[in-house]
Every structure is written in structure tokens, then in C-alpha cells.
């Protein structure tokens, strides 16, 4: 037997098998669920992250440094044993089997704030000062000056947030029990047998699963590679 990476035969038969079964593996449904979850999660992350990164990078307030170090520090603890308390919180909020259980908790991450803050630190503080002299307040500086400048990195953040929530599989299988409500990644795991190893079917599924993230990437790369020219930011 020679080695074949992608024999045409299995590709077609596996996709047919994947797409034809609608009751136990509602692929389209999972796909839509994932889309709703990942898009909402990304929007939430963008809002929360850009706001906080601005404050941690450019505003002065008491305990700023300490607070940020504290946030970063706690983020370094592996979250293995937190599964049960986190589930209890989700349960108390009545979010079991709700997409919210996947949309909100991930937005607690500090890493994206750190990333955006690092990018902001490259923008000269003079920009803010000039605007402040013109009478702009913090919200205006944030929305008019900084936001347009950090668009490329926000696209990177969107990409990470979207892919991260799209690929998560342990957490969704803990919080969802309804097959119809599952997102696609844990859904696809149901195709893989308990004992039978079917690498071919799983690979077919894996390729289906990356289509939206890949499309998002293709769309995003056009923009985040656009040069973020600092001078145009000042004019605008």
C-alpha cells in the first residue's frame, strides 16, 4: 500500500456521507450555531478589548500598573480545575445550553488587551496631547484618533477571537447537551467513533470546519496588511 495523502475517492465519499445525514449530525445547523457564537463573541471581545487597552495604555489612574499586572498574573494559571466552578456560574445564570455560555466567558481573557496595548504603545502620545489641546475628551481621542490607527491589530484580534471560539471543543461539550444547539467543532467529534478510528472522515470534517475561519482570514489579510500610516490618522 502506497501512501496517499488525499485520495480523491475518500474525499468525495466522505463528504457525501458527512452531508447526507441530517438527524444525528445536523452539519448545517452546527455551522449556523458556530457562526452566531463566534461572531457575537468576536464583537464582544473587540468592544471590551479596545476600550480597556486604551485605558491601560493611555489613561492615568490610581493602581493602573498594579491592576494590569494582577490581571496578567492570574491569567497564567492553567484553568483545568476551574471547569467545575465555571460551570456552576453558568448554571446559576441559567446559561446551560445557551450560546451565551460560549460567547461571554472567553472575553475575560487579558491577552488580547495586552496585544492591543502593545500596538498602542507605538502610537506617539503627542497625538493625544494635540487632540486634547483642541478640546477633545478621552472618549473622542479613543474613537477619533486611536481606533482608526489600531484597525490592523483589531483585525488580528478578531481573527484570534473568532478562530479560538470556533475551535474550542471541551467547553462546548460540557455546556451543551442538545445536539441541535452544538457548535460545529464538538459536533464533528461525534462523527469520530469511540473505538473505530476513522481518520479519513475526521479529516473531511476538519476541512469543512476551517472554511469560515479561512474565509475570514482571506478577508482580513487584505486589511491588516494595509499600511497603518500614522500621519493619515492625525489628519482624519
Amino acid at each position, binding site marked *: *500500500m502506497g*501512501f496517499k*495523502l488525499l485520495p480523491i475517492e475518500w474525499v468525495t465519499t466522505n463528504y457525501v456521507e458527512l452531508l447526507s445525514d441530517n438527524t444525528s449530525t445536523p452539519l448545517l445547523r452546527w455551522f449556523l450555531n458556530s457562526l452566531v457564537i463566534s461572531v457575537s463573541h468576536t464583537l464582544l471581545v473587540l468592544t*471590551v478589548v479596545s*476600550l*480597556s487597552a486604551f*485605558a491601560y495604555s493611555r*489613561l*492615568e*489612574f490610581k493602581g*493602573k500598573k498594579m491592576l494590569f499586572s494582577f*490581571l496578567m498574573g492570574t491569567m*497564567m*494559571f*492553567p*484553568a*483545568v*480545575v*476551574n*471547569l*467545575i466552578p*465555571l460551570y456552576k*456560574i453558568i448554571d446559576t445564570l441559567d446559561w446551560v445550553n445557551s450560546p451565551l455560555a460560549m460567547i*461571554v*466567558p472567553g472575553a*475575560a481573557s*487579558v491577552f488580547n*488587551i*495586552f*496585544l492591543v496595548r*502593545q*500596538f498602542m*504603545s*507605538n502610537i506617539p502620545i503627542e497625538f493625544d496631547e494635540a487632540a486634547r489641546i483642541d478640546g477633545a*475628551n*478621552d*472618549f473622542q481621542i*479613543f474613537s477619533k484618533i486611536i481606533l482608526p490607527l489600531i484597525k490592523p491589530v483589531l483585525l*488580528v484580534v478578531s481573527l*484570534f477571537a473568532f*478562530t479560538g471560539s470556533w475551535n474550542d*471543543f471541551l467547553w462546548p461539550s460540557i455546556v451543551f447537551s442538545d445536539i441541535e444547539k452544538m457548535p460545529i467543532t464538538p459536533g464533528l*467529534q461525534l462523527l*469520530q467513533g469511540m473505538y473505530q478510528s476513522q*481518520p479519513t472522515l*475526521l*479529516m473531511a470534517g*476538519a476541512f469543512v*470546519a*476551517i472554511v469560515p*475561519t479561512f474565509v475570514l*482570514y*482571506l478577508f482580513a*489579510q487584505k486589511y*491588516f*496588511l494595509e*499600511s*497603518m*500610516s*500614522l500621519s493619515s490618522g492625525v489628519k482624519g
Partner: protein
Amino acid sequence: MKAVTGVNKLTKKTSSINITPWLFIGPHLLIFLIFFLVPIGFGIYISFTEWDLISQPDFVGLANYKEILFNHDSIFYEQFQTGLKNTFLFVLFAVPFCILVPLFLATALHAKPKFWKIFQSLFYMPSLFAISAVVIIWKLMFDVTYGPINHLFQLNTLWLRNQPYAWVSLVIVTVWWTIGGNMVIYQAALNGIPKDYYEAADIDGASGMQKFLKITLPSMKSQILYTVVLTTISQFNVYGQPLMLTGGGPTNSTRVLLMNIQQNAFGSGQSIAGIASAMAIILGVCIMAVASLQFFFLRDKK
């Protein structure tokens, strides 16, 4: 309308007690508090108990920490020692490549060679796969009998069952899987460097290498700091690759700490969550220590 005037009053006050920053960080802090701080607090509490996940946790004080750190006869001491050692080794082997390879690729792509867009997509694609798919692909690649790697190089290497090949395999898979993330960050950073810096250097007759070292790298400093710290943290959390590729073997040499933590907490036997939690906390402290060192050496010394 009432709400708006209310808010307006609020901002007027800000100048005196400065609550504006808190409005900016408030939404994140709230989510962080509920969905991260509370659970991690519970995790820390659990590390001081004996718990099987089901009944009430029994408070045992520092017993778990003592057992893991000082009781040489205990299996958990041994688990922790080998697990932590292997985790550090993995971080040491993998992180440099996880930084340098994407940095090299991003720089190469930035010069916009032919077909760069296609290459860029190809380099990015692996990071979109879930880990289980990554492992399936590479298990095939490393197969002794049918694997294309041995076939291509006319080798007979048992990649996943011998050292140092097992480490080499794990690093290759990890780098392949994670190129995309750091590459994208570097690309965004490279695009942020004003063109006139280079034009000025051109006038001075600087070579390509000089430009890279004198202009490119310093301009990307904050992003490189970010990626170094973040890559280190995420590689400390390595789990899926050794679990599914080497199974921790040969003879436990790639058994990383997170595999032991996971098995103690959610293994096939009765859960030993107290010990697992204590191990996780100590691992967290180690990560913090390493990350702080990196901050110290890489921060902008102005």
C-alpha cells in the same frame, strides 16, 4: 434623554475623581471577575483540600503542596518533578522556533515576493485546525512504515518512540501548528513601520541586514515582547500534542505536567482534584516567574 444627561453629568465629574478610565475598563473587569477570578479563586481554595469532585471538599491546609514539593516517596512528587522538567524542556525547545520561524516568514513575505499571498495563506492555514486534526495529519506523516517523512528521506526512524526524535517531532508539529498567530502579529507590526525610516537608511547606504537589525527589530520591540511572553505562556500549557502523538512516551520523557494535572482531575479513576489543583497553581507560579523575567529583560528601557 434623561440617561444622556445623567451620563453627561458623570463625565463632568471625571475631572475631579477621574472615573473615565473605569468606564473604559469596567466591562472587561466585570466579565473577568465573574468568569475568571471567581473560578480561579475556587481553584486556589481546592488546592488546599482533598476533593473527588462530588462530595464536599475537605480542608487539609498545605498538605497537598507539601506532598508535591517535599514528599520524595509520593507518586505525586515524582509526577510533578518529571512533569515540570518535561514542560520546561518543551518550552525551551519550542519557544525559540515559534518566534524565529514566524518572524523570518513575516519578514520574507513583507518583501512581497512572487505568489506571496498564496504562501501567506498556506503558512496561516495550519493554525485554523483543531488540535485533533493536526495530530491525525502528523501521525500519518511520522508513521514508521507508511509515513512520507521516512519514505522521502529513506529513513527508518521511529519518530515518536525514541529520543531525541520524540522532542523533535513535538516541536515540528507545534511550530507548524502555531506559525500563523505570531506571523500575523509580525506582519501587522511590519506594516506599521513608516516607510520613510527605510528611505532614510537607503540614503545612508545601509544593507538589508543592517536595516533589519537597526530599524525593523527595534520598531517591532513591543510586539516581539508580546509574542515572546504569550508564546511562552501558551507553550507551558502544552497538552494535546504529547497526549495524542507520543502519549507521554518513550518512558515518560515527554509526559508534561498538564497531562498529570488533567489525569488526576478528570482521569479514568476517582478524581484527585486537590492535588491536581495544587499542581496547577504551582505551574501558574512558575509561568509567572518566567514571564516576569522576560518582561524584565525585554521591556523598553527608557
